[in-house]
């Protein structure tokens, strides 16, 4: 794992989903078993990049997600390595039983890509805004779950999926998003990235929330608070070791996710803390709400997911830590 942090809160000129395509193009060249199946959403993630290069290994299943997952499982059974894409809402809850039995229980290496995670669905609104996509996969034994943050990480982690031997799910941001890492960065599935080492509180974030966490760290620093920032791009298998060592070090934790809280990154981390090292913890994410239409920045405020919300949560967690010691 070698990465370079280049975050300065600015938007990449390239779309995140093109990172998936460029990465797939490489993988498909190296490995003739890799195929991509889409559900009439090729236009949304620019599949033409791989379709033109490998017309025989890119399939449209039409608007029939359940079958697309099943077909992927059959392909995997013959030794192929299938990637299946739909919007996150459909690539999870609409095909839960297919994912669970045909893929998960059957132990087939099927790699599902769900686009438009959480509030990035923006104007598409509630019907297309997945707050529970990762939750469905969290319930599946041994599924791998990835929530990448930017172009470079999407590119790097897509390549790594080929070696995952069971069901996996990766969220895919469709549009241009803030750059966090330099292009040549490399990551390991299941290993969180320590972006800042602090001593007062640990912020663990993934996906679009990493950028907000870094911004929160800056604000906190100005107030004399020293925060760790972790990019937990892999929700499962979760980097338990890193979580516990950070908990021991800072004694206060804040999680930040673009997902609902009843079954998500925060609750998975809470499970780890409760069993290993209970400390004050605050969670940022969606609480008991459905999605809605709106621009991403407005939704971010609406669901209390901004850098300022993270800052407040950190202060609360640190206060709880101090209160506990008294």
């Amino acid at each position: 794992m070698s990465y370079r942090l280049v975050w300065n809160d600015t938007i990449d000129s390239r779309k995140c989903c093109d990172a998936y395509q460029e990465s797939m193009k490489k993988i498909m060249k190296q490995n003739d078993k890799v195929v991509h199946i889409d559900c009439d959403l090729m236009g949304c993630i620019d599949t033409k990049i791989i379709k033109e290069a490998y017309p025989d290994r890119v399939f449209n299943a039409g608007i029939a997600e359940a079958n697309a997952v099943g077909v992927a499982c059959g392909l995997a059974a013959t030794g192929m390595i299938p990637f299946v894409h739909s919007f996150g809402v459909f690539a999870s809850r609409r095909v839960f039983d297919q994912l669970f039995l045909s893929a998960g229980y059957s132990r087939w290496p099927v790699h599902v890509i769900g686009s438009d995670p959480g509030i990035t669905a923006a104007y598409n609104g509630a019907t297309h805004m997945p707050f529970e996509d990762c939750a469905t996969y969290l319930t599946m034994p041994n599924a791998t779950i990835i929530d990448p943050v930017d172009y470079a990480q999407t590119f790097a982690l897509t390549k790594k999926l080929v070696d995952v031997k069971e069901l996996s799910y990766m969220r895919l941001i469709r549009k241009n998003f803030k750059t966090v890492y330099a292009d040549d960065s490399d990551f390991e599935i299941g290993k969180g990235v320590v972006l800042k080492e602090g001593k007062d509180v640990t912020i663990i974030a993934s996906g679009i929330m990493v950028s907000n966490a870094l911004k929160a760290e800056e604000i906190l620093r100005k107030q004399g608070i020293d925060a760790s920032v972790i990019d937990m791009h892999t929700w499962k298998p979760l980097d338990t070791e890193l979580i516990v060592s950070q908990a021991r070090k800072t004694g206060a934790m804040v999680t930040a996710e673009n997902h609902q809280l009843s079954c998500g990154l925060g609750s998975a981390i809470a499970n780890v803390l409760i069993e290993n090292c209970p400390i004050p913890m605050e969670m940022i994410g969606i609480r008991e709400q459905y999605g809605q239409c709106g621009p991403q920045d407005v939704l971010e405020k609406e669901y209390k997911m901004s850098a300022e919300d993270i800052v407040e949560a950190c202060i609360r967690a640190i206060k709880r830590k101090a209160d506990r010691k008294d």
Partner: protein
Amino acid sequence: MTKEEKIHELEVFAAQIRLETLKIIASRGNGHIGGCMSIADTLAVLYGEVMKYDPKNPLWKQRDWCVLSKGHGGPAMYATLGLKGFYDVKEAYTLNDFKTSFPSHTDHTKTPGVDLTTGSLGQGISEAVGAALGNRLQNINSHVFVFVGDGEADEGQVWEAAQFAAHYKLNNLIAFIDDNKRQLDGACEDVMSHGKGLSAKFDAFGWKVIDVKDGNDVEQIYDAVNEAYTEKERPIAIVLDTKKGKGVSSVEKSGAHSSHLNKEEWEVIIKEAQDNLNRISGKENA
């Protein structure tokens, strides 16, 4: 061997499958006798004659595949595979026991020779379609056979799979539609009817359809498979007009989906199956 001799051999094999299936279900005391009996003849044709497979190497790349999308027919599959040497058939007398390799619904992670895991109706046919596509992509010259129940065909996923298979011209996919007219809650006609019928539906989806008048007649099934092999473009649906519970008179009569029988009732139906086997194979000696 003449065709007549071959057909007779398959009839004997079907009778053996029936007997063993019943013994397997009897080891548990209850199970899906009806749906197992209706497919026994087709399993006999597949594993007795048309499929290429290697019991010592179940994952042989060049093999033909067989997927029981109506996964609750597991015991019939276990009887067939056991009789063909994938394992000792008696091992399957542990049906649904704790840690068994023989759960009532077929599971490729547990049973040698089972190609894909099924049990949630509608999913197996998609998996079979994927296997057919995967084999074709790897230039493997083989067929994927899949059993779909007429009740199962209520599931939307069956038709998603059907349109995909036709769109990609998977002529290496042969589906047996077990048209036994019954599903769990009774007659399909009452529970959920199939409009112009399953043959018409598959035809409308762009499949080649072969209707088998008596879907429990090995010769008619065998001829249908040979006809299916000649198709160059389309996936093939062999629609079998079958009888749920075929060969077990009490179940034929009741049409029961799942049977819970007492010891005496088991003795009666196992004896019936044994007598049928003796009668059919006895013809051989005559």
